[in-house]
């Protein structure tokens, strides 16, 4: 019995050290990034400690802060997953922006055209339309890759630019809201609004949906045969093909799933948050999603955590620009530096061995 407890303690400390080993490089990267940017803004004459405080704690100071953070978290996490899924097969989906936009267009179109339908019909329809639209926007580069071997980085980016014009057209011409200053559509029917979890400040149930999706994705990649084939395709497409996996179908599947995820992000923004389609609603979610995916090193389990942290930084950054006149891009620089340091720490680890 003496030996057993000793083993138990040893196992626990090994596990602890393992977790610490995995988390430590991230902590160091975050601290280093903050230190570097802090130095710069300090030299520019700003109050560094106050800046740190604002950027990190605004999310938690008021209920509104928490809600804002959660509202940002949902699209960020979905965009990051839309990047990491194709990444696991070795493909780079830079089209999350366009996929989110057409997802929003699909949702808004159905929501406006059938505005009078009751909620239990309209809401699922709105979601279906948006997810489908996003999936199609992912299918186009997927098919171009399959049929013509066109590099997906290019095709997804170009489709982003096409989608910018599409949303401009829809919001400025087709369903234009004449009162709004910025191109915006008329509101979608109330049946298409996502139910609220909390009334004041308003927090919609999209967050539950997003978390369920994240869990589903994790189960898919780690526990299903199809998920195995996807991961293995990324590990060595040539060997996978030789041993019977339809590699090109895997590439396509990963891009279509990604499109659906990003489209879902668009739907949630329209149905849950804004209740209408606003030009530029996709904000900087794509770039941040890419950064999150890369910081998480493509690990779908880590993505929600990293996404939440980035959401905190983004909320804090806009507060920082409002109250201290520090440009909001500073948070972006911090995030880019975190990515850089995380990537470098990988290299250091390999060198050490």
């Amino acid at each position, binding site marked *: 019995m003496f030996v057993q407890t000793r083993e138990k303690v040893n196992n626990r400390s090994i596990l602890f050290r393992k977790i610490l080993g995995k988390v430590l490089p991230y902590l160091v990267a975050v601290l280093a990034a903050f230190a570097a940017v802090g130095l710069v803004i300090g030299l*520019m004459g700003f109050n560094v400690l106050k800046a740190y405080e604002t950027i990190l704690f605004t999310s938690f100071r008021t209920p509104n802060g928490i809600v804002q953070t959660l509202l940002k978290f949902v699209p960020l996490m979905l965009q990051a997953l839309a990047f990491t899924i194709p990444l696991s097969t070795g493909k*780079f989906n*830079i089209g999350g922006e366009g996929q989110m936009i057409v997802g929003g267009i699909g949702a808004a179109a159905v929501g406006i055209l059938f505005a009078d339908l009751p909620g239990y019909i309209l809401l699922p329809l709105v979601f279906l339309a948006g997810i489908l639209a996003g999936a199609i926007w992912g299918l186009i580069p997927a098919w*171009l890759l399959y049929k*013509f*071997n*066109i*590099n997906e*980085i*290019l*095709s997804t*980016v*170009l*489709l*982003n*630019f*096409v989608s910018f*014009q*599409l949303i*401009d*057209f829809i919001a*400025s*011409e087709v369903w234009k809201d004449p009162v709004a200053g910025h191109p915006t559509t008329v509101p979608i029917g109330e049946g298409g609004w996502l139910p609220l979890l909390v009334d004041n400040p308003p927090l919609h149930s999209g967050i539950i949906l997003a978390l369920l999706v994240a869990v589903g994705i994790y189960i898919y990649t780690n526990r299903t045969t199809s998920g195995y084939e996807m991961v293995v395709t990324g590990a060595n497409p040539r060997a996978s093909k030789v041993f019977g996996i339809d590699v090109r179908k895997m590439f396509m599947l990963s891009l279509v799933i990604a499109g659906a995820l990003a489209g879902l992000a668009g739907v949630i923004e329209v149905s849950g948050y804004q209740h209408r389609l606003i030009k530029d609603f996709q904000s900087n979610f794509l*770039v941040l999603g*890419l*950064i999150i995916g*890369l910081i998480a090193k493509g690990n779908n389990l880590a993505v929600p955590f990293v996404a939440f942290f980035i959401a905190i930084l983004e909320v804090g950054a806009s507060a920082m*620009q409002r109250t201290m*006149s520090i*440009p909001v*891009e*500073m948070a*972006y*620089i911090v995030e*880019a530096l975190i*990515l*850089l340091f995380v*990537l*470098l720490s990988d*290299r250091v680890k390999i060198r050490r061995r």
Partner: protein
Amino acid sequence: MDFIVQLQSFLKLIFIYMVPFVLASQGTMLGGRTGVFNVAQEGIMLLGSAVGFLISYNSGNTLLGMLAASACGAVFGLALAYFTTTLKMDQFVVGLALFFVGFGLHTLIPKLALGITSVLPRIATLSDAPVPLLSQIPFLGDILFNQNAMVYFSIILSFVLWYFMYKTSPGLEMRSVGENPMAADSLGVNVGMWRYLTAAFGGALMGLAGAYIPMVFAGTFTPNIVAGRGWISIALTFFGGWSPLNIMFGSLFFAGVDSLASIAQVSGIGIPYQFLLMLPYIATLLVMIFTFRRSRAPAFLGKNYDREKRILT
């Protein structure tokens, strides 16, 4: 009469529009020929547009602005070379990371220099530099020989690159690095040096391409003024088969589509302007369908070389 004049100004416009495409594509080609696939063009061009504009405005000298933008681009190219050639990191990931940095800096630096919300000042646009005698040729003279200096530079650069790559011995060495770095290394060719050189020079060209845009089209700077031309230049490089002269002609074709879209916007054809603005991007997609199959990219494009390892990342 009127049609000829319109055609003439349209053709002249094409050469003006061609410059950023040529510069960015040649920059991509140079790196790619040694195996370094730079995908950060858009970020480098965005940063180049901001830096070029600010330095030109501050100093009153556009040449200085262009040099500053090129220098920034070269730094990014060196960073890419360092992270991939020396640290052996994945080229696409590093390229994306550099794109992020360039993208972020291009709105940050103007904010820091000019304040957060302010009307952006104007700078003088590049003036035409007519070539004596040749610019007097009817019709063609104005199109080919009455352009700004950067147009001449782009064309001359393309020819110089072509000659260097195919008609000189160092050019042969450079190409061998991208085709088979192991073979080149075993014969004493300095693989690392060539990768650093081409990445840096390529980055400089990209920065220059970005700086050109505010200096010629609008005379002022707006965020995202590059509008995807960086990404398009990647497709152009494939379209031109990674060969300098074909890239130049391909860029001309693209500039045609690009300028057609903006002219059509103004002259009021029935189609909503948003769809015309989509044209360049859709055209790029169509072009890629025809060229990706047949394009001969360097064999080791995008792959890093490690002398002691058997597995190439």
